[in-house]
């Protein structure tokens, strides 16, 4: 796992539909040490997805720099794994093959990469689903596959783009707890984008509140781990932190 540094990042582009220049991200700087879980939260249109897409390399940035482990990034690559809101699993490959995809791209042999895939599926408690196709699984299970698929490739940084937004509320809570459990075992560097404030506080070591393409404030979350919803729902500090972040986001 490596650190992620963002310095004076900005994104301005020409919107063909509007016919004008649009600035989605203004001068954002962020330091994420290796192994830290950072939640980025903000209302729709605040630029958080654009930020993630730039870090991932799907969008070029027009100003500033992005460094992973001290080295600048160029385009998408296996050093920055991504978990998508729509799961983005390959429907024509089994669950096992989906998880083995990254290693396959690296040239790992079949036996070896299937072993890796099985390991990670076991981590997500999905071993029985290995031979199934994505459309046969529920949304929650599909996203778990999405998470371990990205992890199985052992990226330096894990980027998660509102991964639980397409899943029902109960499953979401389970997935959040699963994610913290997996994170504590593997300790990847994570950038987690969401519009759900309690989720951001629940998951992160730090919450970055974004609005209109700018950072409003960074708030440290010093709640102990492991974090479980039943406990935190009653915890005063959790409620205070959530309340503060919510206020920030809503007032901007």
């Amino acid at each position: 796992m490596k650190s992620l540094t963002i310095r004076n990042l900005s994104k301005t582009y020409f919107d063909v539909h509007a016919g004008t220049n649009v600035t989605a991200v203004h001068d954002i700087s962020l330091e994420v040490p290796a192994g830290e879980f950072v939640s980025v939260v903000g209302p729709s249109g605040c630029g958080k997805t654009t930020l993630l897409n730039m870090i991932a390399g799907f969008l070029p940035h027009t100003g500033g720099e992005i460094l992973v482990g001290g080295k600048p990034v160029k385009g998408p690559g296996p050093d920055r794994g991504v978990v998508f809101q729509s799961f983005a699993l390959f429907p024509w490959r089994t669950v096992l093959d989906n998880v083995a995809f990254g290693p396959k791209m690296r040239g790992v042999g079949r036996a070896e990469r299937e072993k890796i895939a099985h390991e990670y599926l076991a981590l997500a408690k999905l071993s029985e689903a290995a031979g199934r196709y994505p459309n046969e699984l529920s949304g929650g299970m599909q996203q778990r596959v999405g998470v371990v698929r990205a992890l199985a490739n052992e990226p330096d940084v894990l980027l998660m783009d509102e991964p639980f937004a397409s899943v029902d509320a109960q499953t979401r809570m389970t997935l959040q707890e699963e994610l913290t459990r997996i994170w504590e075992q593997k300790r990847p560097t994570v950038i987690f984008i969401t519009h759900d404030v309690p989720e951001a506080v629940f998951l992160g070591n730090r919450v970055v509140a974004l609005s209109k393409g700018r950072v409003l404030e960074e708030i440290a979350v010093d709640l102990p781990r492991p974090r479980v919803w039943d406990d935190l729902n009653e915890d005063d500090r959790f409620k205070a932190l959530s309340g503060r972040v919510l206020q920030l986001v809503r007032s901007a």
Partner: protein
Amino acid sequence: MSKCCNTAREVILDHGELASRPRLSDAAAAAVLHPERPARRFLPEEEVMRHRLSSALWFCAPFAVLLVLWAVLIPAFEVNPRLFPNLESVVQAGLDGIKDGTLIRHIGASLMRVTVGTLLALVFAIPLGIAMGVSPAVSSFLTPPFRFFSVLAGIAWIPVASLWFGYGFGAITFVIFNAVFFIVTYNTLLGVSTIPMQVRHAAASLGAGKWAMLTEVLLPGALPNIVTGIRTGLGFAWRGLIAAEMIATNVGLGYMLFVARDFYKTEVIVLGMIVIGVLWLLLDRLLLAPIERATSERWGLVQRA
């Protein structure tokens, strides 16, 4: 963009393709009747085989009835053989045609032209379709011309083809090429452009290079549309083949039919019609439909359309 593509896909849908859809509605009906049971059931191997065997038998049953009716009614009403042949004479004509090789030659010529024309068309259509489909701007710009040319598929090209290539193999293969090329290119374009961007991003973020992207993402993602396109295109190609053979050559099933008309040899005509029907039925249901089912339904992509 999706609005244009959805309706465009409807234009391209072939009635043959829809004929396989009842399976989807059975599943849908089952899901409605038993909401707790998942819509897809995984049956053991032998049950699947027995199911297939019994549905094959049920499929043939109405034809057995028709054959019996034919054998009985024609002689009973003393129908003029110049108007409609009786079953025996058709069978006899078939046997004769096989014995002296003419039937085989005609079938061979027709199949050869279809195969060559189709393969040639696919070699150009699929790469072109993928190249065009990758960029949303290019695919939406090029969609209207391709739709336009898809309309002219097959038969409308016959007069031009016969003037440009003269009689025979070239002209007919050209007609078939056209029938398949435009439709497959268009469907490939559609298929690639409807692969969700996030899936392509996912592959990129997992380290897929250009070649891997093509073989692991674009081709499989577009495959259901490509197969539908091939099936539709072949339907037009087959019809175009028969029509072209009627006026532009001297061997082949279409020719066989047309020439027999001059001599009022209705048994040859009916034989030819049955052969054409059986060939297409075999090709479509035993080859194309299973491929289509295997790709789209297995991968749950049918719902995408």
